[in-house]
């Protein structure tokens, strides 16, 4: 465990030695960013819309007190999704989607000697392959999280109004109530940290694959489980420090 953590730190360091030219890395980063974005936008959209909807319905179910205004439902949906559900659940979903694809891709490149082929050409394969993935994830995740926030609030709106739990006016009043802009900043900080954790841990797992197809599968699984644990620990630590 500790040994793997040390190896992970050395791996991170190797990303910044013998770098390729900025032009090449920039091109690679754009490619990776497009790939991450396109591959995950659909699942993020679906998950966040439903999370918003479910949150709204459950809050409404729990708020049966006549003294509490119905707009509180909108308020609760906003608080829960922006602060926690949008960044964290989105990241956990992305750990499954992006993390496994990073680890699987790098693992396959390793066992089919594509990584060796890069090294023979004198290219720092870790830096060439991994650095753009990490940077791309850091750029794209916050965008996906912003989308997730928007859609989860929209999901809540649809669920709340269509089921007749509250009127559109009440929902909108609720989501505007006592709005703290810092919460958005906090959520974006979380998304950047989670992006780094997912992309670097998954790259690490994939890059150090050896053996065959079976090991590539194992690396993918390890990438997802390790990333999810890292996200949850990171979530706690960030909440503790920044709130």
């Amino acid at each position, binding site marked *: 465990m500790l040994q793997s953590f040390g190896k992970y730190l050395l791996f991170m360091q190797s990303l910044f030695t*013998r770098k*390729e030219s900025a032009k*090449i890395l920039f091109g690679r980063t754009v490619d990776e960013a497009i790939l991450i974005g396109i591959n995950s936008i659909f699942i993020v959209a679906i998950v966040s819309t439903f999370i918003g909807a479910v949150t709204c319905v459950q809050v409404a179910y729990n708020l049966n007190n006549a003294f509490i205004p119905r707009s509180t439902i909108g308020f609760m949906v906003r608080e829960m999704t922006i602060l926690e559900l949008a960044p964290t659940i989105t990241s956990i979903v992305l750990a499954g989607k992006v993390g496994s694809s990073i680890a699987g891709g790098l693992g*396959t*490149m390793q066992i*089919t*000697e*594509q990584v*060796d*082929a890069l*090294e*023979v*050409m*004198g*290219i720092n394969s870790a830096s060439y392959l991994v650095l753009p993935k990490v940077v791309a994830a850091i750029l794209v995740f916050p965008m996906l999280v912003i989308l997730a926030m928007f859609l989860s609030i929209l999901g809540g709106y649809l669920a709340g109004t269509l089921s007749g739990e509250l009127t559109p006016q009440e929902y909108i009043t609720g989501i505007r109530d006592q709005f703290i802009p810092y919460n958005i900043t906090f959520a974006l900080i979380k998304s950047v940290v989670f992006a780094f954790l997912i992309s670097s841990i998954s790259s690490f797992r994939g890059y150090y694959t050896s053996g065959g197809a079976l090991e590539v599968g194992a690396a993918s699984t390890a990438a997802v489980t390790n990333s999810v644990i890292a996200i949850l620990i990171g979530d706690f630590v960030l909440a503790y420090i920044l709130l």
Partner: protein
Amino acid sequence: MIEIHNIHKAFDGKKVLDGVSGVFETGKTNLLLGASGTGKSVLLKCIVGLIKPDLGSVTFDGTYFTNNKLDIRQEIRRKIGMLFQGSALFDSMTVEQNVEFPLKMLTDMNKEERMDRVNFCLKRVGLEGANKKMPSEISGGMKKRVGIARAIAPHCTYLFCDEPNSGLDPQTAMKIDELIKEITEEYNITTIIVTHDMNSVIEIGDKIMFLYEGKKLWEGTRDEIMDTDIHELNEFIFANRLMRDAKKVEDEEREEEEERRHNGQVASQGKEKAPSEETVETRDEPQPENPDGPAATTQSGNDKV
């Protein structure tokens, strides 16, 4: 000329290379011969610097490589082309992009110059027109050709091939071997080929080094190899011949079978046979009937050792 001196390598205390020394000459196809698991790939990787030897040194045309300064190592690496056992094509890129890749990374050619070179190299290996194909869409033999094109694209001075004919049917294997030999002589490069196939030895082995359990047991030319008195080498040759004979019998049987079937079809359709050139070329295509037969299975099986 590449010189290796006293290369030692062990993995987790298990000795894989045990003091291998030798010289690989320019303009010749130098063969590293040996059964599977004798450390041929490890030796090749030590030479190109993918694995660091525990002891020993490698010199490229007089320049010390192992443990030298990074920029000198990089300078030499830029002159190295390598064909990997599984071709190791970048599977997210087209054939053309694969061959262009080292040019993009290692030279300052512009796009037009790069494409000229790519097309030249693809033509040289007999793959003109395959530019836009993905690696997953082409056969094993074609992959090897793309691998060779990618290796020679940046005008390499040293060419390394790890089992260039593994997993190929005999005809395609022979063509790949010949291509490597031609390229070696045409551009006067230093080529090292790892193989466990006596066919390659007989066809293209200018200079052969026989490895056995991590040691160099014999060295010589293909004319000398048949009358050596090294027991292990004789045993290796004998085993290889047995396998080849077995394969030949099987091939002949299959050919007869095919001929019979083919004749039946020709009789019913009344069409003439395809020209021989065509027949050989289509050998490169993946074939549903698995023409590699038992050889391919034993090869890949042994490689796991």
